[in-house]
């Protein structure tokens, strides 16, 4: 106790100084608005900083719960979005190709069966004649990433079969997006589920790896410019004037789920003009 008093005595000047300064600051902060605001603001920002740091640290501890929560949220949102798609099942969404003035209707559909491993692969969609898929027509089918295939003739009431792009007899007119040159897309024996081959790109064409290959829109089954894939490899065919171009497909056929059936409202008009006889799943492009 005595030591304490001695200590206080020894530092009494400093103590007086501190007490008076504290008094000054109390007066300062309680009487001057500017200082009051600054004081509270900076205290708030200090507290804010501390709390933010705390959050930054504790956040890691709750990552697991947060992940679970986000997954729940995700599935809930998916239900809303795709549930809605189910509600509007059978509703064709209108889209207009502004340049060519051709109208396209899109029918959302889901893949219920799908193969990729065979030479002739088919996809089954959960839409049928009842949804307005004409069993007599060959309709284009696209996925979120790009072209998927054509509907096969003779769909049932609730289901439709699609000739996948991964089908040995699949054939489609394709366009080199950069130059506009046309070629013919096929799925050949050397192709796997990630690739296809484009023929009849002339040798003078300036092709680079990564160039986009899109639909031509020539027969009106697909709008022009639907993505097919990108150039992954190309070689000259000896003795001809053409390239053989390998295309990396945009669509991953193994994970395909949501697709759209495309209907061209004016296709009958076009067809009646062209009067072309078509074999079963072999539209002549």
């Amino acid at each position: 106790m005595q030591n304490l008093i001695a200590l206080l005595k020894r530092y009494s000047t400093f103590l007086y100084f501190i007490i008076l300064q504290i008094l000054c600051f109390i007066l300062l902060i309680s009487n001057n608005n500017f200082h009051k605001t600054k004081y509270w603001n900076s205290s708030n920002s200090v507290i804010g900083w501390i709390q933010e740091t705390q959050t930054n640290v504790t956040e890691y501890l709750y990552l697991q719960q947060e992940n679970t929560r986000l997954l729940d949220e995700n599935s809930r949102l998916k239900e809303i979005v795709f549930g809605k798609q189910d509600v509007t099942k059978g509703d064709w969404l209108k889209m207009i190709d502004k340049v060519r003035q051709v109208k396209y209707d899109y029918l959302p559909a889901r893949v219920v069966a799908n193969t990729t491993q065979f030479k002739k692969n088919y996809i089954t969609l959960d839409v049928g004649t009842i949804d307005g898929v004409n069993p007599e027509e060959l309709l284009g089918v696209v996925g979120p990433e790009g072209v998927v295939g054509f509907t096969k003739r003779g769909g049932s009431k609730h289901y439709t079969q699609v000739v996948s792009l991964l089908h040995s007899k699949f054939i489609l007119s394709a366009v080199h997006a950069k130059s506009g040159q046309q070629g013919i897309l096929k799925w050949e024996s050397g192709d796997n589920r990630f690739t296809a081959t484009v023929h009849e790109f002339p040798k003078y064409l300036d092709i680079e790896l990564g160039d986009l290959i899109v639909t031509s829109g020539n027969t009106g089954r697909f709008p022009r410019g639907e993505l097919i894939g990108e150039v992954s490899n190309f070689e000259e065919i000896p003795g001809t004037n053409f390239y053989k171009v390998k295309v990396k497909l945009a669509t991953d056929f193994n994970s395909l789920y949501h697709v759209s059936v495309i209907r061209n409202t004016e296709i009958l008009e076009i067809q009646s003009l062209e009067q072309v006889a078509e074999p079963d799943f072999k539209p002549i492009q």
Partner: protein
Amino acid sequence: MRNILIHSLRFVFLVLLQTLVLHNIDLGDYSPYFNSFLYILFILMLPYDIPSWLILILSFMIGLCVDLFLGTIGMHASACVLLAFLRPTIMKMLASRDEYEFRNQPNIYIMGFSWFLYYSFFAALVHHLWFYMIEDFRLIELHIIFLKALGSALFTTVLIIASQYLMYRAKKENG
């Protein structure tokens, strides 16, 4: 007793001079950089052997008085308390303990011109620097604060030296 009276009168006079006259000096564009706080002369001229608690309280009082007039409650008081706290340190810096013996009144005649010049300049610098730091309160533009403190300290020092000559010449003529 006489000393107490003189110091009290000086207290009142300096507070009035500071708040009624010096506060209204307008130097145009340079005004923010040259403010004079002559009233710290009161603290500077307190006797050397004054108890530390007394000088702290007196400084607090004169600062608070100026604050009351200028509406800056706490700012001048805080700067004055700091100055009073550091005054012994400044004195120790400028001369050894012996030199203050029998020279109780720190003024320009007893302590000499150069001593008094440094004394008032360092004191003013401490006071003004602290004052402008509290005034700004955010300490973001420290260089501006320092410039202001330096300019004002020079101004204050000039006024303090001038006042010394005025005060003691008048005294001589009267006495």
